[in-house]
């Protein structure tokens, strides 16, 4: 074929890569300069995650499992940060664990970014604790069903969990008020549902954040076994916007003050709590490019079919 259609037919895929780079880099630059984010309309699945944490009585102990590594941190770290932030704002106690080898470092980063930076009054071992990574995948899940401290005998820094005030009322995983899990693959949300939530007879509520490719797999479990679901960076952006809306609401200021949060936080949202919403700009650019590419590909295909029919005739 000649002309534009011929160019498209023989297009080197590196031009497609360049177009994708521009589609992603453009919004990043624009949003970085203008400091604006796109408005988010939260869906029921994200609202359910927000409500699950809000509805817990103050001071509840929440288990946060960060089952991801740096490769998927772009999509999942904002979810983990938001979950830790909402729990801290609500005055909940947080127990962090991970079933991925590099997940322990992701927890460290979140604790440093959120808890130590904005909630310095929270004490390690009393208000939050990092139990780090434990090898064994589903086996760890089977053990925590009956004896949580046997599965995690020490914290990441080597302290015995038997002596920790935060775990004083925790014998098994069912004693937690909520399981908030961020999952990049295996082991992840599906395994937690199969081995822990189902085995607990639905008594342990669970909310989950996962990557985009995993979301279709987890929708069958929502809203039954998984009470709330954050799917991909879109879900993270919706959840972030719900928390930010709540934080900026003057009616919430008193509640947050009692949790020890700096009331200055309510005046403006720090950039670190806008990461997911910022990443929706590049996502928009990339999705629009995908739509254009699919349309162009089909134009080429239809043109090829027509020329083949003409040649056959």
């Amino acid at each position, binding site marked *: 074929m000649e002309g534009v259609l011929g160019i498209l037919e023989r297009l080197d895929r590196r031009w497609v890569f360049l177009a994708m780079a521009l589609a992603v880099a453009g919004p990043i630059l624009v949003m970085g300069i203008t400091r604006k984010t796109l408005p988010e309309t939260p869906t029921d699945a994200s609202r359910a995650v927000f409500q699950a944490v809000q509805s817990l009585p103050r001071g509840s102990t929440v288990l946060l499992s960060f089952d991801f590594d740096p*490769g998927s941190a772009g999509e999942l770290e904002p979810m983990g940060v938001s979950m830790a932030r909402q729990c801290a704002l609500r005055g909940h106690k947080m127990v962090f664990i991970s079933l991925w080898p590099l997940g322990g470092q992701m927890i460290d980063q979140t604790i440093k970014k959120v808890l130590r930076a904005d909630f310095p009054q929270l004490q390690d071992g009393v208000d939050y604790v990092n139990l780090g990574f434990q090898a064994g995948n589903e086996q760890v899940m089977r053990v925590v069903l009956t004896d949580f401290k046997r599965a995690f005998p020490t914290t990441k820094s080597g302290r015995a969990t038997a002596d920790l005030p935060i775990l004083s009322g925790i014998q098994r995983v069912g004693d937690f008020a909520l399981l908030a899990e961020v999952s990049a693959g*295996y082991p992840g949300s599906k395994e937690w549902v199969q081995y822990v939530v189902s085995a607990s007879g*639905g008594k342990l509520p669970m909310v989950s954040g996962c990557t985009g490719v995993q979301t*279709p797999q987890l929708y069958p479990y929502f809203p039954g076994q998984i009470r709330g679901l954050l799917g991909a960076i879109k879900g993270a952006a919706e959840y972030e916007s719900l928390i930010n809306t709540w934080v900026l609401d003057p009616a919430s200021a008193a509640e947050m003050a009692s949790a020890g949060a700096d009331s200055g936080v309510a005046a403006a949202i720090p950039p670190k709590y806008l990461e997911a919403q910022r990443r929706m700009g590049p996502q928009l650019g990339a999705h629009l490019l995908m739509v254009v590419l699919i349309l162009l590909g089909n134009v080429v295909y239809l043109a090829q079919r027509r020329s083949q029919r003409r040649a056959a005739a």
Partner: protein
Amino acid sequence: MRGYRAAYRMVRGRSITSAVARMMLPLLAACVVVTLSHRPASAHPQEVAAAVSTEAAAAVGASTASLFTPGKLPLAVAIVLTSGCIIAWMLQARAGAPMYLRRIPALDAVTNAVGRSTEMGRPVLFIAGIQDMDNIQTVAGITVLSHVAKTTAEYDATIEVPTSRSLVMEAAREAVRGSYQAAGRFDAYNADAIRYITDEQFGFVASVSGEMVREKPAACFYMGCFFAESLILAETGNSIGAIQIAGTAESSQLPFFVAACDYTLIGEEFMAASAYLSGAPDQIGSLKGQDAAKVIVATLILLGVFLATIAALNLPQSEAVSRVLESLKGALGS
């Protein structure tokens, strides 16, 4: 030494299946003895006889329940039913009943793909997923590897098997060595062609992609459990012009393989691959048994949908049907 001789006498001259069954019987017996001997102290017979009360009756009930986890009964029934279907069809197939199996284009293409590699003088690349041997998809991938390796040995092509787990490397070496031996080409077997790269997902795919671009295998097989690296592998294979056959039970990665590979085994087709390639009657029979179990599941789903629809409508029977559904849900533990 005596124990070894006794064990040898037990299995000598018997078929593999019956030998394994005979060795399993003592273990089963031990399990039963351990289970029956597990009684709480309060359920002593004399105490029960002396104190006939609701508390003692509850203690006896509790001791009976502790032999078996009652909440798992529906799961146990499902396993027995499914296994029964599969074993029944296996026995039928062994008895000579004809079994029709539809063609699976991806598996028919294995021989062509290996032949292409031989003609072009380029290697065959086989990746058995990125999970360990405790994942059934990896085991299924290794079983397919053994068949592909046998074809490779017969066609005098070279096979490269980079692995992401050390145990998988060892299992793959055993499988490929056995296949080369069976094909009578043990001299062509090269253990270093099956090598460990790294456990780190993206480190593994970076290494394999680099090798694909440099060595340009003519045929690429992706058979196992994959995650985000599936598209990187498939696109790289596409860019070097290789024929690609993929198979996985990881539903999140199926769209990427379907889009980028020439042939894809979807879910249970991948699980059936080993049986399909072997052609053995009892293995084909197990596939039929699997289909029978699927018919039972589909029937139960239709029944459940029918009952739920009746319960949702404002019919005279709706309340009774709702009660039945609730009790079923409770029994199934949902």
